């Protein structure tokens, strides 16, 4: 039966593509029409779209893909050389090869430590007060775990069950990085982070049952400034512990209830554990969850594609909780590689992944990209503790460990305060203040005019055409179209502008385009 259906879907796809044909491709953003669904992800997504009567977008061009993959996988803009090399590569499997290379880059660990830093509230100061040493230890542990691709079940188990000094056993910082150490607050943090549920919406009995697992945690300070020993304190008073599914465990007197909880959560049949993380990974790469918001899982917020979610869960468990496997599955799918140009105005199109959703790039990624393009850097420092901490000049913003170390640019572009661990804390919405800053601030103007990389490019004796190509490759990760090249020629030739100033204006215009500021 299912084979018949999928053949039907394929036929329909061929029909749809035949209708639009290669004539319908939008240059320079689209490369080819969608092919037959080969992988499971595409089958499930296209079947669903078929039912809704929505045609998927075309497949994005190589230029769009290389930029998208760099931004999504390592939070980093490709250099002009990266783009040239990729475009020149004639190998049919070059997209897959690029994905594999990116997953091994050190920026992968930087970027995803940033993401986990948001969710785990890695921040020295108010209201989390992890303090600098705790932050460094915790961030280092998170980053190493990602770098060595620690299995996700172990990653979570270490956070939930470790005991010891927060400087020496960094995973215990999970229990320090909340606004209070009340058992119910800790339970809410666990539910949000690892179950994707907002426990403040639960009835109070369910929450207090879960809080029971986190009621016997002891915190002991030491002679070291802000060091704290975290662990099971059998002498503290217990609260009756009940799993969120209503089952009451038997917990022996000397057993750490956190372990009992971790055993329950991290098991193959648990309805939350794998579901939460695969849904999040999907939403991080596609811009929205199969359950949306990804950290608001509840019975009355069903997934748009239950089978797709189930499939990803099964893949994660079957591959020993290897998150990179899920990354590969998604990144290699046609669904991920669709262009961002919708085929329909139907509102379900984006929610069902008929095209790649436009999203503004994150604050840290944006400032890093601007620095990379221009050859400039930011100054970050912290006044806590004295003497001040100064971050080295060439340090990238995605690699900042501490949410308290920030800048007005990062704040303006919606970097999360890391107070609650909610995904929605990060605000990628555009604002007038952001546009003012990009269009007209001395901060950005100085980067464009005085950054050594752009300056050496603009001052070189290369023919104008080469300079223009290089600017396009550096900023938009593609060559200009014939139309754009014409508009640039005209601007360069008009009104007695000197070439230098006109080139600065071109760089400025590209940096301020939606194409640069958005993932597309």
């Amino acid at each position, binding site marked *: 039966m299912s084979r018949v259906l999928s053949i039907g879907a394929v036929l329909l796809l061929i029909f749809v593509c035949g209708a639009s044909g290669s004539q319908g491709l939008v240059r320079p953003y689209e490369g080819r029409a969608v092919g037959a669904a080969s992988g499971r992800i595409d089958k499930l997504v296209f079947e669903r779209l078929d039912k809704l009567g929505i045609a998927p977008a075309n497949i994005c061009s190589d230029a769009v893909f290389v930029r998208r993959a760099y931004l999504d996988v390592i939070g980093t803009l490709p250099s002009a050389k990266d783009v040239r090399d990729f475009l020149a590569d004639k190998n049919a499997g070059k997209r897959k090869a690029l994905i594999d290379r990116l997953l091994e880059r050190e920026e992968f660990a930087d970027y995803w430590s940033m993401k986990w830093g948001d969710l785990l509230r890695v921040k020295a100061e108010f209201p989390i007060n992890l303090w600098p040493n705790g932050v460094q230890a915790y961030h280092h542990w998170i980053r190493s775990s990602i770098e060595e691709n620690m299995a996700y079940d172990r990653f979570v188990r270490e956070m939930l069950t470790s005991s010891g000094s927060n400087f020496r056993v960094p995973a215990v910082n999970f229990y320090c990085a909340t606004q*209070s150490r009340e058992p119910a607050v800790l339970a809410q943090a666990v539910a949000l982070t690892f179950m994707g549920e907002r426990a403040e919406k639960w009835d109070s009995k369910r929450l207090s049952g879960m809080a029971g697992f986190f009621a016997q945690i002891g915190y002991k300070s030491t002679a070291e400034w802000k060091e704290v020993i975290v662990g099971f304190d059998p002498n503290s008073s217990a609260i009756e512990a009940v799993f969120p599914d209503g089952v009451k465990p038997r917990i022996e007197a000397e057993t750490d209830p956190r372990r009992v909880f971790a055993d329950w959560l991290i098991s193959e049949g648990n309805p939350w554990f794998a579901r939460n993380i695969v849904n999040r990974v999907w939403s991080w790469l596609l811009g929205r969850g199969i359950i949306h918001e990804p950290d608001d899982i509840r019975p009355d917020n069903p997934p748009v594609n239950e089978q797709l979610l189930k499939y990803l869960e099964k893949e994660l468990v079957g591959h020993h909780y290897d998150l990179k496997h899920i990354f590969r599955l998604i990144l290699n799918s046609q669904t991920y590689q669709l262009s961002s140009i919708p085929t329909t105005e139907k509102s379900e199109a984006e929610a069902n992944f008929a095209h790649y959703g*436009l999203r503004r790039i994150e604050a840290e990624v944006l400032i890093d990209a601007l620095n990379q393009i221009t050859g400039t850097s930011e100054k970050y420092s912290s006044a806590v503790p004295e003497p001040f901490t100064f971050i080295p000049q060439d340090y990238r913003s995605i690699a900042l460990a501490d949410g308290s170390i920030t800048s007005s640019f990062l704040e303006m572009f919606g970097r999360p305060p890391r107070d609650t661990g909610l995904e929605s804390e990060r605000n990628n919405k555009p604002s007038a203040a952001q546009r003012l800053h990009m269009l007209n601030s001395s*901060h950005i*103007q100085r980067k464009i005019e005085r950054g050594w990389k752009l300056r050496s490019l603009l001052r070189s004796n290369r023919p104008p055409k080469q300079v223009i190509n290089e600017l396009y490759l550096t900023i938009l990760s593609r060559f200009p179209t014939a139309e754009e090249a014409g508009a640039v020629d005209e601007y360069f030739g008009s009104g007695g502008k000197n070439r230098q100033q006109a080139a600065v204006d071109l760089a400025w*215009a590209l940096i301020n385009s939606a194409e640069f500021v958005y993932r597309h």
Partner: protein
Amino acid sequence: MNDEQKQRVRGRVLQGDGMCRRRLLQQGLFGAAGLVLGERMCAAARGAAAEPKGKAKSVIQIWMWGGPSHLDTFDPKPEAGNAYCGPLINPIKTNVDGIMVGELLPLLAKQADKYSIIRSMTHGINAHETASYMVQTGRKPGDGQVYPSVGAVVSLFKGYDAGYKGLIPPYVVLTTPQGRFSEAGFLGSKYKPFATGGDPAKNPFVVEGVVAEGVSEQRQKDRREFMHKLDTLGGAVKGDEELAAFGRCEQQAYDLILGDAGKVFNLSGEKDELRDQYGRTTFGQACLAARRLVERGVPYVTINYKGWDTHKQHFTAMRRNLPMLDKGMATLLEDLSGRGLLDTTIVWWGGEFGRTPKVQWEAPWNGGRGHYGKVFSTVVAGGGFKGGRVVGASDATGENVKERPVYPVDLIASMYELLGIDTNAKLPHPQGLSVRAVPSEADGVQSGGRLTEIM
């Protein structure tokens, strides 16, 4: 109230009634509970429209980041001797009988009839961040929420949601954000202040984004048009809500860059004598810029004035900094008053705490003052606050509250009342929690009551 005003008020009431009836009809669909609630909401709205309580329209907050010494400014204690006063032992009379201020504030002494000094502010917190949070939100940290500061709340109730139409954002900070302090709290980045950057004492005052150095108006226009020509993605993706918002933001940005609104930051239009009187310092000219902003209706301006965390070389710092404060703030009060703006503008001076009354002569401080949250001074003027008064008192050495403790929430609630902000109003909370604009004692907040004696 003249006829025209009366009519306007009446018009508002009528309009409000119409809206309420509609809302009631809608809510009728959801049953009786909705109806009762709706009625109560409408009654509140009518009340607000019929008798606007507060006459204050704007706030200028002079934020003394670091915590200024109360003994050396507005609560001198000459009898306590050198151990407490150091060399600043000769406070001076003001133009109000019986009120004395520190000897380094001679110009403010001449304006004392315009402001009231609260000498019994207290919260007992001695850490910068927690105290800043307490003073500017009225709440103690630690219940799992980060509450918005006064500036964010005022920009919520007096800003765009309340009919403010200015292009200048409703909450402006001169010149840099406080840092280590989330101004907007759970209200989110929409209510964060616009930080001008730049230095108002320089010419031009380069306001980040609004005034660019060395880009002519013609070039601004040319390159904008050029940018539009190159917008290939925008042409390919049509009808996208996200890109439409991006475009609207661009329009707003250019209204500020090319339009008249941005000229508020052009201080060179002011008379030289006046600029000199404010002091040609960053703080002095920030005071002038603040006046220009409230003159154009901006509801909340913070002057983030750093440099008051004087653990060491305290008295050298006082001799350097207090004269700048004196010039800028005294001229601001005089200028606001001269233009009739003081009646509608609250000026709020203060930091997160005071400083240890007893001078720390020992090493490593060698004449410094530490953090002190047990008692400290705050000054308020205008917007309905009376001048020439002193509220409360500290003891003989300025170490304890002697009478009439004033907690941060008392001052905040008083300002909201003067601004016509309902202190029981609910703040929009992202997770739907019910949070009032001002916490009550039921929320575990200490209070000494609103400042009715000076309102």
